[in-house]
């Protein structure tokens, strides 16, 4: 397991590192990425996609058996067992991410909870089911981003670019019946992302909300069991699109401090 990180002497001095030869404009080579909900659906597809692009990837999921399974399939990835909805797990997760990767450049808050299963009208939703959705979809990303902000900010100061992606949904914007708990929590995450991006602009840390669209994943199947799966986007395609969006954000990042102004 790669636990060392490059010494600072190997980081190019220019704030925008030269792209590698393999892919012009691929900022992922050597970049340190953490993905929550990384053993299923979009999260797993992202782990594979970003490893393929040359990133160093840590992934987080609740089930040890799944983390170990994915770890065997992808031995270069650093698997971490943890539940972002539990506040006691946040610092252990953070320690393992930053200790394992040596720092962090990109965080993808992907782990999501649908709320009540099967989906229910708000009037039939138990408050505790709603609380669980908020705990995973809002407070998990909030706490994890806070705990990792020192590392992300250090990455930004070094010109590596620091980006947080909060996975969103059109349920955050449109009123779909029975998607109340999930939709409201994703709406909260969307607004949180927008305000936080504004607040951190001086730090050079970007907070972005991205809606990957309706995907053919276990989560979607649980929510809409009778959907026509052929109309859904494969998770691999969504992961590729999301990777491109993150790349665009990284390459457009501002120079944080003009030292010789």
């Amino acid at each position, binding site marked *: 397991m790669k636990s060392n990180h490059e010494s600072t002497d190997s980081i190019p001095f220019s704030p925008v590192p030269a792209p590698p030869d393999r892919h012009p404009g691929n900022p992922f080579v050597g970049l340190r990425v953490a993905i929550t909900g990384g053993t299923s659906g979009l999260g797993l597809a992202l782990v594979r996609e970003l490893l393929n692009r040359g990133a160093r990837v840590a992934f987080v999921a609740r089930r040890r058996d799944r983390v170990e399974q994915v770890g065997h399939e992808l031995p270069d990835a650093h698997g971490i*067992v943890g539940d972002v909805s539990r506040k006691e797990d946040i*610092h252990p*997760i953070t*320690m393992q991410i930053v200790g394992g990767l040596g*720092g962090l450049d990109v965080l993808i808050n992907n782990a999501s909870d649908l709320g009540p299963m099967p989906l229910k009208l708000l009037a039939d939703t138990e408050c505790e089911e709603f609380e669980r959705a908020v705990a995973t979809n809002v407070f998990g990303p909030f706490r994890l981003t806070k705990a990792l*902000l*020192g590392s992300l900010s250090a990455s930004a*100061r070094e*010109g590596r670019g620091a980006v947080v992606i909060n996975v969103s949904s059109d349920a955050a914007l449109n009123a779909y019946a029975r998607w109340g708990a999930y939709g409201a929590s994703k709406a909260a995450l969307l607004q949180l992302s927008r305000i936080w991006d504004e607040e951190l602009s*001086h730090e050079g840390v970007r907070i972005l909300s991205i809606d990957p669209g309706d995907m053919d994943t276990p989560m979607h199947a649980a929510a809409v069991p009778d959907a026509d799966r052929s109309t859904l986007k494969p998770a691999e395609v969504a992961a590729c699109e999301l990777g491109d969006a993150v790349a665009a954000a990284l390459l457009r990042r501002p120079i944080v401090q003009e030292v010789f102004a």
Partner: protein
Amino acid sequence: MVDARGNIKHHVRSELANLFRPGDVVVANDAATLPASLSGRHGRTGRSIEVRLAARASLDEVSQFSAVVFGEGDFRTRTESRAEPPTLNPGDQLELGPLQASVVRLLNHPRFILMRFAGSSREIWEGLARHGRPIQYSHVPTPLAVWDTWTPIAGPPVAFEPPSAGFALDWKMVASMSARKIRFGTITHAAGLSSTGDPQLDALLPFAEPYRIPRSTASMIEHAQASRGRIIAIGTTVVRALEHTAAIFNGFVPPGERLATQRLGASSRLRIVDAILSGTHERGSSHYELLRSFVDDETLNRIDQELNAHHYRTHEFGDSVFLEKADKQMQSADQPSVAA
């Protein structure tokens, strides 16, 4: 706050950012605190022990640490009064929750060992994250959560105790510095134990501590040196790191990772740091000795009296002192070191 002429003034913590001026470079230690206290059993005797990780050779070293070992009990007992551990021999196995470690050798003291964790780095990190508890002392009676010990800017988990001056910072302050053209940078320094409970070991503190200066911080310092801007250290670990590098490189501070082995004291010449924000450490500790490189003993005595008279809180969760380097030092020692 103590200025370069030794005048003392009191401020509310929220006024801290006002002490910095445009053109200043403020450097903090972004080390996150490891939960470095590991409870467990000594395999050979079956007796309970507490292991406190104390140092390691580099910031990337995962499996090998030096550690101080205690017998039964925990932080609620004063460190000096803790039970002795069982006799430790090279090869002894230590069962520390999910972690297995072996004693590599003793480091010239029955309670100070070099130890090696078994397993992959992923397993070691998980074990430390799940089973470790923050090192703490009897003056704080309630168990600390890891989040109590991380400063707001905490990044790499490499410190054995909190770089506590960093608790004075918040992100609002960092943002306001940026707006006021005050440069803020970080170093990562593996802040070590403040106390071992044994006078022989305490006399060896601080142990050699690895640190890393990133390129952006080195650039800021170089710029400040060229433009006579002040370099302000948030905490003693920053002073230790920057002055160690400056001593090696004759006044320059290039980026890179090194091992800080020196102790700073009354006779030390500060080449880089102009002012320090520090906790109100107790007299006689190595931190206190470092403050003597900033101001003379007469000033430190007056500071002590003021702190007591106004009931400032000591130790790591207490109040802060902002010390400018005394004027006489700046006149005699501080020549600009700019390359020809």
